[in-house]
């Protein structure tokens, strides 16, 4: 092989690997990304049942029900709209009524959101950033959420 051929072999392999990874990334992006929606988005966008989405907002005070065994129900609200959620399994340690939550799953035909994961991600303010943005958008953001941290997280929703 001449130096030129070797260089071509090298560049060819490099481009091949690059093309392979681009193809993998594009196909994976099409199939596996999940959009975040506030309850208002869910209602306004008429999201089809079965589409995988994330819904975020506050756990509505007084809506948390533990039915038989491990099935739980609660409503996610952004102050404007509410989405009923059912979830089977453990809720994260930080799950509380009146606090921010992000659930991932799909809508059922009857409008209930069946979650297969409820996220425990949070920063020190116990408020997922997406949820904070969604609340701000709906005009229900209260500065209190920031101050809760100032009071050592002792502010209660009820």
């Amino acid at each position: 092989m001449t130096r030129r051929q070797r260089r071509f072999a090298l560049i060819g392999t490099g481009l091949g690997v690059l093309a392979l990874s681009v193809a993998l990334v594009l196909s994976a992006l099409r199939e596996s990304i999940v959009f975040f929606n506030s309850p208002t988005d869910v209602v306004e966008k008429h999201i089809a049942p079965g589409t995988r989405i994330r819904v975020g907002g506050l756990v509505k005070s007084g809506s948390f029900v533990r039915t038989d065994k491990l099935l739980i129900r609660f409503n996610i609200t952004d102050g404007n709209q509410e989405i009923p959620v059912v979830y089977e399994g453990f809720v994260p340690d930080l799950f509380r009524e009146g606090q921010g939550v992000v659930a991932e799953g799909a809508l059922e035909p009857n409008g209930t959101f069946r979650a297969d994961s409820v996220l425990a991600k949070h920063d020190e303010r116990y408020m997922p950033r997406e949820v904070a943005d969604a609340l701000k958008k709906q005009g229900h953001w209260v500065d209190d959420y920031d101050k809760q941290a100032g009071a050592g997280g002792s502010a209660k929703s009820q």
Partner: protein
Amino acid sequence: MIAEIGHFALVLALALALIQSIVPIVATRYRDTVVMGVAETTAVAQFGFVTIAFASLITCYVVSDFTVATVFENSHSAMPLIYKFTSVWGNHEGSMLLWVLILSLFGAFVAIFGANLPLTLKVNVLAVQSWIAATFYLFILITSNPFARIAEPPFEGRDLNPILQDLGLAIHPPLLYLGYVGFSITFSFAIAALIEGKIDAAWARWVRPWTLAAWMFLTLGIAMGSYWAYYTLGWGGWWFWDPVENASLMPWLAGTALLHSAVVMEKRNALKVWTILLAILTFSLSLIGTFLVRSGVLTSVHAFATDPLRGVFILVILIAFVGGGLALYAWRAPMLKQGGLFAPISREGALIFNNLFLTAACATVFVGTLYPLALETLTGAKISVGAPFFNATFGPLFVPLLIAVPFGPLMAWKRGDLPGVAQRLSGAFAVAAAAIVVTFAIAGGGSILVPFAIGLAFFVMVGAVTDLAERTSLFRAPVALSWIRARGLSRSAWGTAFAHFGLGVTLLGIVFETHWGAEQIAMVKPAQTLSLSGYDFTFRGLTQRDGPNYRELSANFVVRKDGALIGMMSPSKRSFATREMSTSEAALMTRGFSQLYLSLGDQKPDESVAIRIYYKPLVLLIWLGAVVMMFGGALSLSDRRLRIGAPRPARSKTALQPAE
């Protein structure tokens, strides 16, 4: 008073860093060796002052000085001493101080242990290191001063986030920072070499120990972080493709590629342009990681509440160093000429193959991590890219890489003999094939992917052993001769074999855990028994006890296998009064390399509790493999070649000429 000493020491470190940033570079212009030598003194002094600052902050935490804002926000007088100590870096300000402590530590190490480096290179490296240090001291002093006082000090602190009250906080962040801040040295070496225009095989030899050291710490840091997440979050998972995890994985992938390409540069004087680029990119990825974690753009267990100024500041640092580094590279790199001809099938070729796939895998992680941020900035749409994306991209790219791993070390330099190598790997092929058949038979059909992955893991492990056997003529020569050869074998050859073996071990653990792991969630009443994977768990009721700063509710389970008692497991929930938070403490029982894992959920008034039981076969191999990899790195680092007898560097003029 102590906080002021710390603050003042940090300001002095900044002043020294500014001197060290400029003076050596100017002095090298005038070839004034005395003034150039200043950089060594300032580098050590800088480390000294940052250590004073860090020690002051530790003192503030240990004595619970709540007049200091960060101590008030992250500590509590009732906390055990170890957590008072670790909460120093369990918050934004303190962790940035740890960051610069390690940055200055590496600078001081170059000054002290870099005796074999040419003076010009050494002082330029120290100068570049100081640019980074100066910007981060400024960042801390302007936006994140850990020593700020509170005007009206409260009597009690607000406690450390309970999730962080764990031994993991003592281990994971310092190791991880030693790793990814350690790559700053390779960046400084690359920039210094570009400034000087003098890049040769000797450069690769000098930079390799630093790369290896950083890589070892990063490997262990990531593994320990993964184990911490596994036992503390109660979800039984060990990797979540969380953006912050990815932020540490990207420098690891790039750093691993760098380790391999530096070998080619050192031995064959080839791949220079690429190696320098990787050195710049690796640290750039570390900086991106710092930005992602510290700017608050992500929601994550790692993110602390932040103000926007910090994000902007780090972004400016990031753009300056990454942009500046790459611009300098673009300007200088065309002057470097490649040397060392080689055929595509050769050790060099194998190492290039490794680099291609590692960087491609790194790029997919990069896209998956940053695409959501980019999309949100551009269109406002919020998306999440989770495990399915990474499994579909990262996985396929790692398969060819893993297949190639055993071939690489057996290839000859310049021109390899692929059929010959394949023949020497016949033992590894046989073991892999046997593993595939056995797995397939036991699993009774199903996906071919799992037996294939198990076979691949055995291929990588046996391949690593084959490499050693070949080098020592094991089985072919008398044992005594093999023994002599084994003793004569370089440490770096042993290191390679161990690191590759560790990779196979980790893969084996991953496949077993993901495929044969079992899980069950249930509500149990006292005296009720649950069964999973041949183990019986009998619930014996709840007990309550008081910890130093929490109350703990434990559920006690008796564990039996085939009727025989094997132990007790008590998963618990801890409630921390100060933050009104509770954490779940999983109970783990180790059985060989496998583990049983219990995590406690809510309790009902009738004494029944929700419980999650996992059986994790061979799960410990995942982290054990990483430890073996790190051990391989340590062996390689102790190689004599890396310490003494480095070849004399080529003269500047000739280095820029074609090497043929």
